[in-house]
C-alpha cells in the first residue's frame, strides 16, 4: 500500500500530465484512493498501468445514495512487482451514467463491467459486448441501486393464491 505521502505524490504526478484529471485523494485505514474525473479514467489507468500497476484486481460499482453523484465505479489496481495496491474511483450521476470502457487496457474487465452495468446501470462506452450478465436479459431495472425495492416476489399463501398463481382457468 502506498502511504498518504506517496498517494499525494502519485496524484501530483497525474496532475502534472493533466491538471484536472484527479479530483480528490482519500486515505482511509491504509487504503489509498484516487478520485478521478470520469472522462479521464482511461488516461489515468493507462498511466498507472505503465507505472507498474499491471493487474486489475477488481472492478465494482457502488451506490452512494443520497450523496451526489450517486454511482461510483472502483478500480482496484495491484502492482505485483512491488506488492502495492491503489484504488481508483470514478463517480457518475444516475442521470448520465457513462464511463469509458477499459477492456482494451485490462481484458479481464469485460465481465466485471458487464456486472456493473447489470447491477447499477453504468454504461461502459466502447465495451465489446455490453449485455446483462447475472439477471435475465428481459429484466427491468438495476437491482443493486439503492432505490430499487428490497423485497422480491410476494410470498404465496393460500389466501392470495388466486391472485398470484395465474389460475386463469
Amino acid at each position, binding site marked *: 500500500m502506498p502511504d498518504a505521502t506517496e498517494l499525494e505524490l502519485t496524484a501530483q504526478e497525474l496532475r502534472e500530465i493533466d491538471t484536472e484529471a484527479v479530483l480528490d485523494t482519500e486515505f482511509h485505514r491504509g487504503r489509498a484512493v484516487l478520485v478521478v474525473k470520469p472522462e479521464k479514467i482511461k488516461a489515468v489507468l493507462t498511466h498507472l498501468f505503465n507505472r507498474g500497476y499491471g493487474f486489475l484486481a477488481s472492478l465494482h460499482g457502488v451506490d452512494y445514495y443520497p450523496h451526489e453523484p450517486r454511482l461510483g465505479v472502483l478500480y482496484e489496481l495491484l502492482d505485483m512487482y512491488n506488492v502495492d495496491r491503489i484504488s481508483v474511483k470514478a463517480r457518475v450521476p444516475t442521470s448520465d451514467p457513462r464511463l469509458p470502457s477499459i477492456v482494451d487496457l485490462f481484458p479481464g474487465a469485460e465481465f466485471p463491467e458487464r456486472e456493473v452495468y447489470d447491477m447499477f446501470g453504468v454504461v461502459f462506452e466502447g465495451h465489446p459486448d455490453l449485455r446483462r450478465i*447475472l*439477471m*435475465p436479459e428481459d*429484466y427491468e*431495472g438495476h*437491482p443493486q441501486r439503492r432505490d*430499487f*425495492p*428490497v*423485497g*422480491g*416476489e410476494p*410470498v*404465496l399463501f*393460500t*389466501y392470495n*393464491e388466486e391472485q*398470484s*398463481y*395465474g*389460475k386463469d*382457468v
Partner: protein
Amino acid sequence: MEVRREPLPSDFRISQLKARDMLRGDLEGEDLERYVEQRVMTTTLNRAVAWARGNSFFPLTFGLACCAIEQIHIVASRMDVARFGWEAFRASPRQADLIILSGRVSIKMAPIIRRIYDQMLDPKWAISMGACCSSMGVFNNYALVPADKFLPISVHVPGCPPRPEALAHGLLRLRSQVLGDPPAGWRERYEAIGTEEVLAGEPPSPAVNVFEPGDTAGA
C-alpha cells in the same frame, strides 16, 4: 464341521404340498375355495395403481442449494428412503416422476426448472423443500421467485434447511396424497380441530394444495 438343518415348520410344508396339488389341478371343492380365499386380495384398479405409484417414487437427481445436502441424507443409511421404495434417484427427467426443489430458485433458473418438469412423464409430482423455495426465506430479494409461481407443488416442506426427517415426512405426506389415504388423525389426537387452512367462502379443502396427476391448473 457338522451342518445342522432346521426342519421346516409343518404348516409351511402342508401349504407347499397344497400348492403343488393346485398346480396339478387336484384341489377341488372346499379345498380350492379356501386356497383361493387365502391367496387372492381384491381391490379396484385405481387403488392398486395408486399403491404402486405411492410406494415407488423415482425422484429426480436434482439439487439447487444447501437443502440438497439434506436431500442427499434421506438416501443415506440413517433416513434411508429405500425403506419406502423411493431410493431410485434418476438422472433423467424422462425416468423420474418426482422433482424435489431443494433450494432457492432464481428468476433465471425458473424457466429451466419448468422445462425439466415439463419433460417428466405423467403422473408427476413436485415437492418444494425449504423456506427459500416456498417463500424465498432469507433471500427474499430481486433475484428469487417462489416455486408456486411456475410449478404445481404438491407438498411444501418448511425449514431452513429442513432436516432429513422433515423431508421424509413430506414424502410420506405425498405418498398418502397419492394413495388417497385419510390424514393420520393428529388433529383428533391433539384436539386441533378448526385449525385447517381454508379460504373464506369456500368449502373446506385439504390444508395442502392437492393436484390430481395431470392437472396443470396450478401451473
